[in-house]
């Protein structure tokens, strides 16, 4: 299988006052194409720092990170921006949509910074991505006219639109109620089934049951890294939930 992400002994230190904080103390793992990996850990375990590394928002103090075969550590800020644009799709906990902007324009955003995509192609791809996440009927709704679940779907469409090597989700269901969380998980599982590589960072152990592999961090080191032999279906879980009582 093709290696999408390869971490080789990644360390990341921060200077806080006179002290050096070791946020990551030598992390190594490889993620292949088509994996759905959850990364778990309590707060302070180095989850966020690792996510920043994976998302090329930050560079390691030592070690090497290969994203789709490209070494990231010595890249300049500008080069990393272009790399993010082409290879990574982010999904954030609080959606981070542009305010008062339509769904299509929000999804178009990553392609706006890719000058090899024409305006016509950009819109077509945005519409296709929105249709993929089930928002084909809400293309021109503005972000402030949508529910949390819809906003997160727009955010996922935005992460899909540049056809990234990996989708990085940071607590993507953290702000949603149980039902909507499962709906989003169903979407992620569908994307996984289509062969997408997904990394889902969360502190919710339940979610690990729906992924193909689970990595647990503790104090900047990997505590556990194992495949999930019994992947649960989020669609089944959703069906098992009690029906919403308020019919509307």
């Amino acid at each position, binding site marked *: 299988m093709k290696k999408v992400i390869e971490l080789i002994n990644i360390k990341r230190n921060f200077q806080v006052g006179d002290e050096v904080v070791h946020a990551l103390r030598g992390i190594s793992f490889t993620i292949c194409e088509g994996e759905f990996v959850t990364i778990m850990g309590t707060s302070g375990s180095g989850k966020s720092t690792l996510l920043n590394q994976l998302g090329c928002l930050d560079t390691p103090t030592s070690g090497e990170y290969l994203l789709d075969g490209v070494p990231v550590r010595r890249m300049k800020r500008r080069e990393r921006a272009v790399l993010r644009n082409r290879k990574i799709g982010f999904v954030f906990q609080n959606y981070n949509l542009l305010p*008062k902007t339509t769904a299509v324009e929000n999804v178009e955003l990553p392609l706006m910074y890719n*000058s090899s995509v024409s305006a016509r192609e950009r819109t077509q791809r945005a519409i296709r991505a929105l249709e993929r996440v089930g928002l084909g009927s809400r293309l021109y709704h503005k972000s402030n006219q949508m529910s949390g679940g819809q906003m997160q779907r727009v955010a996922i469409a935005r992460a899909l639109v540049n056809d990234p090597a990996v989708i990085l989700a940071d607590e993507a269901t953290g702000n949603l109620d149980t039902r909507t969380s499962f709906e989003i998980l169903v979407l992620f599982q569908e994307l996984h089934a289509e062969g997408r590589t997904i990394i889902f960072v969360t502190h919710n152990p339940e979610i690990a049951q729906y992924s193909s592999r689970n990595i647990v961090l503790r104090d900047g080191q990997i505590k556990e890294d194992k495949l999930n032999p019994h992947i649960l279906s989020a669609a089944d879980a959703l069906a098992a939930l009690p029906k919403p009582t308020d019919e509307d």
Partner: protein
Amino acid sequence: MKTKELKDKKMSIANLFKIALRAIAANKLRSFLTMLGIIIGVASVITMLAIGQGSKRSIQAQISEMGSNMIMVRPGQDKGPGGARQDADEMQTLKLKDYELLKTNAKYLAAISPSVNASGQFVRGNNNTPSTLYGISPDYLTIRQLKLDDGEMFTDEDVRVGAKVCVIGKTVADNLFPNGEDPIGQVVRFTTIPLRVVGVLESKGYNSFGMDQDDLVLAPYTTVMKRVLAVTYLEGINCSAVTEDMTDLAIEDIATLLRESHKLKATDEDNFTIRSQQEMAEMMNTTSDLMTTLLLCVACISLIVGGIGIMNIMYVSVTERTKEIGLRMSVGARGIDILSQFLIEAVMLSVTGGIIGVLFGVGASVAVNALAHWPVFIQPWSVILSFAVCTATGVFFGWYPAKKAAQLDPIEAIRYE
């Protein structure tokens, strides 16, 4: 490869414009408030300049109505305001022979007329009015750009014989013929001299000093010199140069001829003074220019304040939009993209503000003209200038906030609350 790069570059600039435009559209009220300063600034620059230019033009128009090519020769040396008073005999240095000399010898002149005046009461039947009697030659009409409303000008023959005829101004005509009778052919009396009215001048109204330009009576200079005043000297010679450009040459020529005729030595001062209408125009322009400059300064200050307004809002908006900037960076915007976006936003705001300001300024100028009846003139360069200043303002005041936005750390920006 080269052409592809170029095409990509073009496209990315087009995208940046689109991004900036969307960001502005998403915050309409804030954008409008930002532009307000620029709108007011530009509108006031244009209005002030329009008023300044308008008054300048109206002064110029009045002066050229009086004859912009006009040259006036007066006896005696003008010592300037507050100088020593002139000798009585210095007032008599211009003689009729000087006029005749200039009439035959002076180059660059289109028309020439001597001038002697007498003030006094004009009487006709029960009506009388104080006015000034000017003794002149028919050329005077050309020089002062006067036109006849009725009747005709007296002739050179009238001048030769010293005929007792006159041409009267509108005010005099109204005062002496209050019931609307035709003045032509009637006789009016100046002191003891009866003068037959042969023409009435077209009205010119008041000049910019508030003088009634219609309150005058013209008669042949021979008549005034011999029959009214009994003098041999002239109060002045008025002439007009062929063109405005030749005024200076004409003045020099007149000076040379007069010095020769007055037998002045090289060391002697002129015993006459030559003034041109142009000089007067320049003097008055200086005043109106000063006023325009002052108004412009005030307007420029408001433009700068508008610019600071833009900087202020852009600066606040960088903080307010930190999260947005973080998001843009995380989906692949480079520092330069963010910088360009904010800069383009600032320039767009100031240029749009500029356009609205131009419209308001033109509107205000028209309104001032319509309501206050002030003369206005909108100079195309004032529009271009304020436009250029606007764009410069946008870049200048947009740069710092844009730079600040571009230097944000994406990790911190995206988690900013």
